């Protein structure tokens, strides 16, 4: 939060400032169509690529190409739902050496700002995995369609940034450090705000008058 010097430090003040500046409703909300969406990654084990799918996640998507200031991408995933098509590997991934699901059942992704760039929108997002937060750039493609929109993105992460497989597992010949995350979301306009998405209390209270 403190990295962006142009903005007030306190999120509540920021929320109020945006509210005052934009009396109209925030960017339109979208709901994920689970059957046509996928959130996954690919990595390497012993020189061979494998893929993992995240089966259980919530997404709060509010997006308008012409109103990036009030657009937000906010995703919470249940780490336990990672499926790498190998029960043995999945069991290893939940242990303390990897995701430590007992202590950190969820991972979160939240944009703090979305910028327009010549190659498309780029989110500056806080990605929190295993309790460690890293600010990442998240370039994505937004395609509006008749029935809604699709969001596609691919980002590369270093698993050691999040303490995944630290210590003995850091050896790259066993498990590669590079992890490619691939996002494909099919979205429909949401009539009501998605109730499951965790929303900070300040945002919740300010959102109500904005919707009238």
């Amino acid at each position: 939060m403190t990295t962006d010097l142009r903005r007030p430090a306190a999120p509540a003040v920021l929320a109020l400032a945006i509210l005052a500046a934009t009396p109209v409703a925030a960017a339109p909300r979208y709901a994920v169509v689970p059957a046509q969406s996928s959130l996954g990654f690919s990595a390497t084990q012993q020189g061979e690529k494998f893929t993992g799918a995240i089966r259980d996640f919530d997404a709060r998507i509010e997006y308008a190409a012409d109103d990036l200031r009030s657009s937000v991408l906010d995703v919470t995933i249940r780490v336990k739902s990672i499926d790498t098509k190998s029960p043995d590997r999945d069991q290893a991934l939940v242990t303390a050496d990897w995701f430590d699901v007992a202590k950190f059942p969820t991972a979160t992704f939240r944009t703090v700002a979305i910028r327009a760039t010549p190659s498309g929108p780029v989110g500056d997002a806080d990605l929190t995995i295993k309790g460690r937060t890293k600010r990442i750039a998240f370039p994505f493609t937004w395609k509006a369609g008749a029935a809604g929109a699709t969001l596609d993105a691919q980002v590369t992460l270093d698993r050691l940034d999040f303490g995944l497989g630290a210590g003995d597992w850091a050896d790259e010949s066993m498990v590669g450090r590079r992890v490619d995350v691939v996002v494909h979301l099919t979205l429909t306009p949401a009539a009501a705000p998605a109730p499951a998405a965790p929303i900070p209390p300040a945002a919740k209270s300010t959102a109500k008058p904005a919707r009238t």
Partner: protein
Amino acid sequence: MQVRSTPSRWGAVTRLFHWGMLLLIGAIIPVGIYMTDLPLGPAKLRVYALHKSIGLTLLGLAALRLLWRLGERRPALPPMPAWQGRAAAATHVLLYVLMFVIPLSGWLYNSAAGFPLQWFHLVNLPALAAADPGLKALAKEAHVTGVVTLIAIVALHAAAALKHHFVDHDGTLQAMLPRIGAGS
């Protein structure tokens, strides 16, 4: 040194296959038993990787050995009752079958578990099947049963060889042993 087999003696290539594979099998079985109880960690994966690499080596050697054997004239059997000759032939066929069944079932087990397969960090091999818990259990059963059968058959094979040597005093065992002393 005689490369090919003669009517009285196995050739050097066959002897190398025989004793070399025995050595590798003698190493891979204890590794296989030891590795399953290791705590999950990179050390365990490394031991598994070694086991798989030796297993793949044995599979390749089995294929080469079979090809070599098919092109070889084998030494004549010493005089023995017909049932013993048949038992020896059946034992040898079973040993060849197990030389393929055990590594292939291990490969299948690895594939059905959804794990990668790499030969000494050099080459990655494809999966024989998609990840499948039912197939995994079946392949494991075949792998373990194959190894238990192999140990029993090898014991029988060795006992027969020793019986030929110490009881019958024929040249069956010597035909497979390296010649001690002056080589020829």
